[in-house]
């Protein structure tokens, strides 16, 4: 099942397209929380201090635990309206 990771707006420019992290990699890399997801996807790029994070479409912080089947999203401050 894995974890689906999405990047929106300028985060997509920094990190790249959406991806799925499969079960094997989750175990191999000991991915437990949102911060681990960022570190795996960002390949050394620092997480911007103002990045917003959602798990299953709810705002969370970087220490939030993740599990298989979750959808994790990273995006910059919102600018709608």
């Amino acid at each position, binding site marked *: 099942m894995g974890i689906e990771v*999405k990047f*929106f*707006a*300028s985060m997509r*420019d920094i990190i790249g397209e959406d991806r799925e992290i499969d079960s094997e990699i989750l175990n191999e890399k000991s991915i437990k929380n949102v911060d681990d997801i960022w570190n795996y996807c960002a390949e050394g790029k620092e997480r911007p201090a103002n990045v*917003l994070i*959602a798990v299953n*479409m709810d*705002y969370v912080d970087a220490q939030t635990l993740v599990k298989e089947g979750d959808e994790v*999203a990273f*995006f*910059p*401050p*919102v*600018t*709608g*309206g």
Partner: protein
Amino acid sequence: MKIMIDSDPFDPWQVLSDYQKENTNLEGQYGATAVFVGTMRDFNEGDNVAEMFLEHYPGMTDRHLENICLQATGEHQLLESLVVHRVGTIRPNDPIVLVAVWTAHRKQAFEACREIMEDLKSKAPFWKKEQLNDGQDRWVEKNTRGY
């Protein structure tokens, strides 16, 4: 309550009129309607803007707007609420957002309309990318303060 996120241009005054007519439950009940319409300018941060692309997070954006309206309905005794937001390519003078609320009295209407709009601006996952007249493009990094 109705939330619409659409890539097609819309006329906020027509949408507002249609919605009010459709909701016959409002008849005789509402004493106040507060409306906010946001429209695209052709300038920002000292530059001329030719057009804009508005991205959103399908699913989360809708859900967030619904939650804002549900919360405002509880806090301000809203009889009805309507939020319409454009996405995709937008040009100057195009309406971007419509927020409308119907209540018995003006206090709740003014406060709820403001709260919904400010929450939308600070938490609803939308992002603007501007294309400038000189051909460059850039992400808008922050909204202006509303209060």
